[in-house]
């Protein structure tokens, strides 16, 4: 497989570029010059610009990066663990499960912390999708996707029930939040979700080489010395934590976890020792750039989930159509 060192560095450094672009662009453009003023001590600094940068734009970019890291890392992990390049947290229903957990905690059970609720139900969703699809120690590609659809639909229906039960004020916020948006981003959200996302991503990052073995299949992984049951559980847990934390602050943002690892694999090959860190980097930049588009494209602001879906859905079709080219087939 071609190594493509340029691709490696391009992906690795892309978050920096995305950061620089996103900091400048917005409803209130911040020029290089304003930046210079801000970073030079002693200059008179405009309070307004400071507020825009530090209280609005910066937390939003940080949160976008965290969510991008979490979604792509979990996507790459789930693809390896389930030996299925066509899944991610969104398709398997982890996101829907997390959303239900959040809605439950917001609307009905305030005693349940949002992140915990999201985590519990995204884990349940993952286990459901896996158990439904597994037959005779194998998890066929297509059945896993179908069981993901089922699980997703189930939890979406549960969320709908909650939507019916809550008052209209809460309903509006739930609906907007479910579309997947970074518009609620602030430092509080970063503090709430950041540690969880980073913890899950760190686990995945540390175990990245073992994902190669996991993706060989149960019998093979066991022969190589992997305690399959336990490690699969650990990786799914890590993915669920990350996704749950991301969903709890931004709602459901789909397709990122599917698309990003694929693009990375196309550029640098399938070895997870490279795929995991580079997916995290590329996910962060993709998320931030998509969000920049979302908040600047039209007059108002559209949920970033719509942007990622507009990219992701055609990409999924493309993957389906080229099928065996990457050695997997349905």
């Amino acid at each position, binding site marked *: 497989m071609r190594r493509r060192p340029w691709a490696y560095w391009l992906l690795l450094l892309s978050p920096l570029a995305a950061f620089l672009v996103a900091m400048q662009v917005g409803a209130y453009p911040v020029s290089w010059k304003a930046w210079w003023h801000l970073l030079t001590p002693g200059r008179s600094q405009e309070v307004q610009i400071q507020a825009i940068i530090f209280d609005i734009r910066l937390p939003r970019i940080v949160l976008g990066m965290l969510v991008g890291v979490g979604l792509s890392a979990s996507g790459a992990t789930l693809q390896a663990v389930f030996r299925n390049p066509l899944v991610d947290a969104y398709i398997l229903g982890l996101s829907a499960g997390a959303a239900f957990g959040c809605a439950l905690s917001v609307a009905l059970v305030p005693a349940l912390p949002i992140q915990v609720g999201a985590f519990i139900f995204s884990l349940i969703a993952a286990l459901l999708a896996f158990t439904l699809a597994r037959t005779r120690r194998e998890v066929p590609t297509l059945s896993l996707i179908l069981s993901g659809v089922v699980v997703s639909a189930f939890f979406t229906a549960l969320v709908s029930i909650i939507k019916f039960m809550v008052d209209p004020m809460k309903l509006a916020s739930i609906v907007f939040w479910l579309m997947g948006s970074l518009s609620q981003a602030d430092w509080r959200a970063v503090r709430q979700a950041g540690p969880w996302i980073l913890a899950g991503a760190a686990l995945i990052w540390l175990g990245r080489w073992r994902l190669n073995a996991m*993706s060989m*299949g149960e019998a093979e992984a066991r*022969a*190589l*010395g992997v*305690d399959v049951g336990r490690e699969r559980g650990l990786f799914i847990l890590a993915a669920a934590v990350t996704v749950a934390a991301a969903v709890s602050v931004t709602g459901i943002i789909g397709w990122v976890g599917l698309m990003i690892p694929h693009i990375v694999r196309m550029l640098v090959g399938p*070895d997870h020792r490279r795929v995991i860190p580079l997916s995290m980097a590329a996910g962060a930049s993709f998320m931030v750039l998509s969000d920049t588009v979302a908040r600047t494209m039209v007059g108002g602001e559209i949920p970033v989930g719509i942007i990622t879906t507009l990219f992701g859905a055609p990409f999924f079709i493309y993957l389906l159509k080229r099928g065996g080219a990457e*050695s997997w087939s349905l």
Partner: protein
Amino acid sequence: MIAVNDLSVRLNGQLILHQVSLKARPGDVTVLLGPNGSGKTTLLLSLSAQITPQEGHILLADQPLAELKTRDLAQVLAIVPQEHHPVFPYTVREVILLGRLSRVGFWSQPGARDREVVTEIIELLGIKHLADKPYTRISGGERQLALLGRCLAQEPLVLLLDEPTNHLDFRNQVMILQLIGNLAHRQGLTVLLTLHDPNLALVFADQVILLAAGRIVAQGRPADVIGPETMAQLYGLEVGMLCQGEQRLLYPKLT
């Protein structure tokens, strides 16, 4: 060393192996011969702890198999599976490197020493030209070599191979068996493999075990065990034999 005592395996209520006892010595190539469905693969799977037997004891390098953890087992025993369909197109080098998994700490990555081992194996197997090719786009024989390489990277004491000559042409069959023989004789590896061709067993085996309907019917040196009568019985076929000095050749008698 492999020592099996009174091993019985039942799968879905069917008795697959019945009180099987055998020994395979270090430095020897031990060949399992038997018709389809005689339990050869089941025996290998039991030895690699992928099937739990109902009765019997298995010792691998003097350690009871039942007491070995998955990770420790991978350091003692390596198995080349019959067929394998990977999802992602890892390079041959990456596949072989995975053999080091049981020797690298849980949260660590393979280091310089591991890469060195892999490079040595690639040279030993003479597959330098394949090292950076996707494992999914090489021929069956080349894949067999890559998997053998992965097993060697485990630095095992016991090596199991399930029909390593499957899908290989004549030359490659001879080549891989010769290679395995050299490994056993030089490094003192205990090798147990299954074959379909008694003639290859005559040439390459140090010891032969005949398996029929889940029972061992004979065990010993190839020249003693493989003959027209035993083969005729084992495969239910009329078999003739040609001799030329030490060389023997079995052939089916057509009626």
